[in-house]
């Protein structure tokens, strides 16, 4: 079953076509690395899959829902790690994680146990948990942010440069989070400039440029090289 199915999808930021007709199909349990130059549309692609944007043309089906009409239905089942952390600066790390756990519909003990698991996974120790987010470093915030997503155990992870700003331990934590999620049956889309690091996790590399898929390692024989201008093609 394919978890993400895009056919000629166009998404606008204002009047700018950040995605200019993109084709992509991702099967359940896959890990896909999205790479491409700055401004290629990687972030928009992930936001589109999360149901935050309305496709203006083409077809977008995520987790069996057509996102032209049913964007709400997928939102609870995906997790999107964006550029901003989505944390409340005046709350502590623990309060943030617990809030987002409850916001995802978990209750009481369930929320707390998942919160502590997620915090452990991201290497957030007791001392850190009781600090307010305002005093944290950028890397610590990023870890907290990932933990707030992990509590929800999403079916589809959309990670926008998850390694950015993290130290070595943090990067390793992200990697183990990804493999754990995949082990549990989730699907992961990662955009990253850390090519070598992510490539060890994902056999499939999709290259995006100018709002389109220009190469997809799964569709070419060698699995690593790509032919610019052929892979995705303008679907619109």
């Amino acid at each position, binding site marked *: 079953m394919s978890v993400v199915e895009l056919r000629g999808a166009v998404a606008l930021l204002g009047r700018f076509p950040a995605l200019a007709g993109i084709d992509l199909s991702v099967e359940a349990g896959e890990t896909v690395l999205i790479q491409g130059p700055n401004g290629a549309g990687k972030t928009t692609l992930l936001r589109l899959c999360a149901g935050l944007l309305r496709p203006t043309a083409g077809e977008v089906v995520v987790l069996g829902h057509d996102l032209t009409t049913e*964007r709400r239905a997928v939102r609870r089942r995906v997790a999107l790690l*964006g550029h901003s952390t989505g944390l409340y600066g005046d709350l502590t790390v623990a309060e943030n994680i617990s*809030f987002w756990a409850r*916001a995802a519909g978990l209750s009481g003990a369930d929320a707390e146990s998942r919160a502590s698991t997620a915090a452990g996974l991201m290497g957030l120790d007791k001392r850190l948990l009781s600090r307010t987010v305002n005093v944290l470093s950028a890397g610590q915030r990023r870890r907290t942010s990932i933990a707030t997503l992990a509590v929800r155990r999403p079916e589809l992870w959309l990670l926008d440069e998850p390694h950015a700003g993290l130290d070595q331990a943090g990067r390793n934590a992200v990697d183990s989070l990804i493999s754990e999620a995949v082990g549990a049956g989730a699907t992961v889309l990662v955009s990253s400039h850390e090519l070598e690091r992510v490539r060890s996790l994902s056999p499939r590399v999709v290259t995006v440029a100018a709002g389109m898929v220009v190469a997809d390692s799964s569709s070419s024989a060698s699995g690593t090289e790509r032919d610019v201008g052929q892979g995705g093609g303008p679907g619109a």
Partner: protein
Amino acid sequence: MLVRGVGQVRELFTDAGLVATRDLRIEARSRVLLNQVAPFALLVLVLFGFALDADQRTLRTFAPGLFWVTVLLAALLAVQRSASIEHADDAHTGLRLSGMAAASVFLGKAAAVFIQLMVLEVLLTIGIVVLYGSEVDNPVLLVLTAVAAAVGVATTGTLYGALASGLGARDTLLPILLLPVLAPVLIGATRSFDDALGAAAVDGWAWLGLLAVFGLVATVLGALAHGAMIED
């Protein structure tokens, strides 16, 4: 069907409680209302005193109007603060993805603003009693008016705060959008206070009815409109 409906309503209020607690906890930590908005409101009362020539009889006559103008000005700040909590670090995207109903978020945030406004109104009541020499004739009417008006201001304010945020020039846009809508609240609450403080002979209870209608309509509409606004 019915069971599902009950479950949904319970979820609506649980989630609203979650959001309200969070906003109030943030306020308890940051003390923006207590350290900035409340002093600002008292300052406005003092400025009115200067502007109106320090004659306590004049001040007492106009105390209800001055009180509610001050509340509206302070409410603008409270609403802006409430909206900026979500937008400071893009938490509203997380809320959209959380699957929580937009109505829950709206009710929760409005409830938090409501409680903060009530605190503000208590302080301002003390303010006009001490500074303007107002006397409370009818405490029941006073309290009910304060509550009904605060509901209207908090719900409308929350809706418009969310509406103006995420647009350019939101700080200047909010007052011109919000204040005209609140004109009936200003008139109604002032008239009702006229009665409760004995400043003028009017029927405060009729005005309270108007405020109650406004509060009710604003709550229901706000919950619906908030959904229409962010559910895209």
